[in-house]
């Protein structure tokens, strides 16, 4: 099986790559359109901001390519947000393969932004991506923007109300948390993606 990590400039690429190595998969880091199109699985990691993330995909000429992929695709953290139509972050037009607009958490006393730390995943739909997920499983989050709950939502997480923490729309999937840093639970969900 060939797995590629799309090099969109995110700083967590190394961590995702190591997590895949721990699962026995050597993923190529690439921004080459042909290599991405030919891969069995495509992962779009990302830490940073939506505007620069999309700018980088445009510079690399990967926007149309990413939209046209038919194999399983996984967006992680910012990568998941880039799958949506728009992000409030810098009012950025994103890839538009998931019908959602990414919203900022609204700070108020007692609600810290970014949402940083371990929080629970609550399964909302049956899906092979969530195989083996328990009712009390935690994942590690670091983000200030989130995808609202919609029909694409596989799991939700509560931070001053529910947001979508795992999504799927056709062959496009997203995890708002960092599976590469979510211990046993994260490894299981990454493996589930590789097994799709």
């Amino acid at each position, binding site marked *: 099986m060939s797995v590629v990590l799309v090099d969109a400039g995110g*700083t967590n690429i190394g961590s995702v790559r190591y997590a895949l190595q721990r699962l026995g998969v050597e993923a190529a880091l690439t921004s080459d359109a042909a290599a991405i199109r030919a891969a069995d699985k495509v992962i779009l990691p990302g830490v940073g901001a939506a505007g620069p993330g999309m700018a980088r995909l445009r510079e690399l000429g990967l926007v149309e390519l990413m939209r046209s992929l038919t194999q399983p695709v996984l967006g992680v953290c910012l990568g998941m947000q880039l799958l949506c139509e728009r992000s409030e972050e810098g009012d950025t037009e994103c890839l538009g393969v998931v019908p959602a607009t990414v919203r900022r958490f609204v700070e108020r006393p007692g609600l810290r932004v970014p*949402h940083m*730390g371990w929080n629970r995943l609550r399964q909302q739909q049956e899906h092979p991506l969530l195989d083996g997920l328990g009712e009390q499983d935690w994942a590690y989050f670091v983000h200030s923007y989130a995808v609202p709950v919609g029909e694409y939502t596989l799991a939700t997480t509560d931070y001053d109300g529910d947001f979508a923490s795992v999504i799927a729309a056709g062959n496009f999937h997203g995890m708002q948390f960092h599976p590469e840093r*979510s211990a046993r639970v994260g490894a299981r969900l990454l493996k589930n993606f590789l097994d799709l």
Partner: protein
Amino acid sequence: MLSRRIIPCLDVRDGKVVKGVRFRDHVVMGEIVELALRYRDEGADELVFYDITASPEGRSVDRGWVERVARVIDIPFCVAGGIRSVQEARAVLHAGADKISVNSPALERPELIDELAAAFGVQCVVVGVDSLRDADGEWRVRQYTGDPSRTQALPRRSLDWVAEAQRRGAGEIVLNCMGSDGVRQGYDLEQLAAVRAICRVPLIASGGAGAIEHFRDAFAEADVDGALAASVFHSGAIAIPALKQALAASGVTVRRG
């Protein structure tokens, strides 16, 4: 609901984990990767590595061990130690760290915080604040605390510095209360509560943990998001599973299992 984080801190010197009392007299506690794995297995929520001699020696953190840790560890970790530029921070993040923490270099040149936040997003940028109460009752920041012979007291009030760091783009504040560090008499709840009142990003307590109730007090009374400790974990005085069980029993939300 977001859980409160338990964060073992590993002070790194010459590639080994060390621990001093009140930031002095360091003794070797063990190998970096070995200790990191042990804490991961015990249920630590995050790890912090401080290359405590990097800043006083005017060098950046050694990236070799950062990469070794990143390969085996599947929980988040933060690296601190003499990071003075976007370029140095990028190297540490690319080696696999999730966050970088700046302390003395940010005091030298506060614009560093703005630059790091612009380059990587606020979620990667932790500002460590070493704070000590002066004779006049004010908490003020200290610089170069990794080397007692170079440690300096600054005129800057700790509360002012926390406010400025947030304005500039700190995504998390670690408050090292130096007066209570290493003596295991409890976190400085008064100081933590004062900083909490003006801190809208995650706040991590550091310095003074000696017993399970000290952690509970920091969460329940000072409303911190995480509690950092070193010697009580390294020595085995407090085991993380027992700590989390006790915290859960007293109503603190913690990740277990």
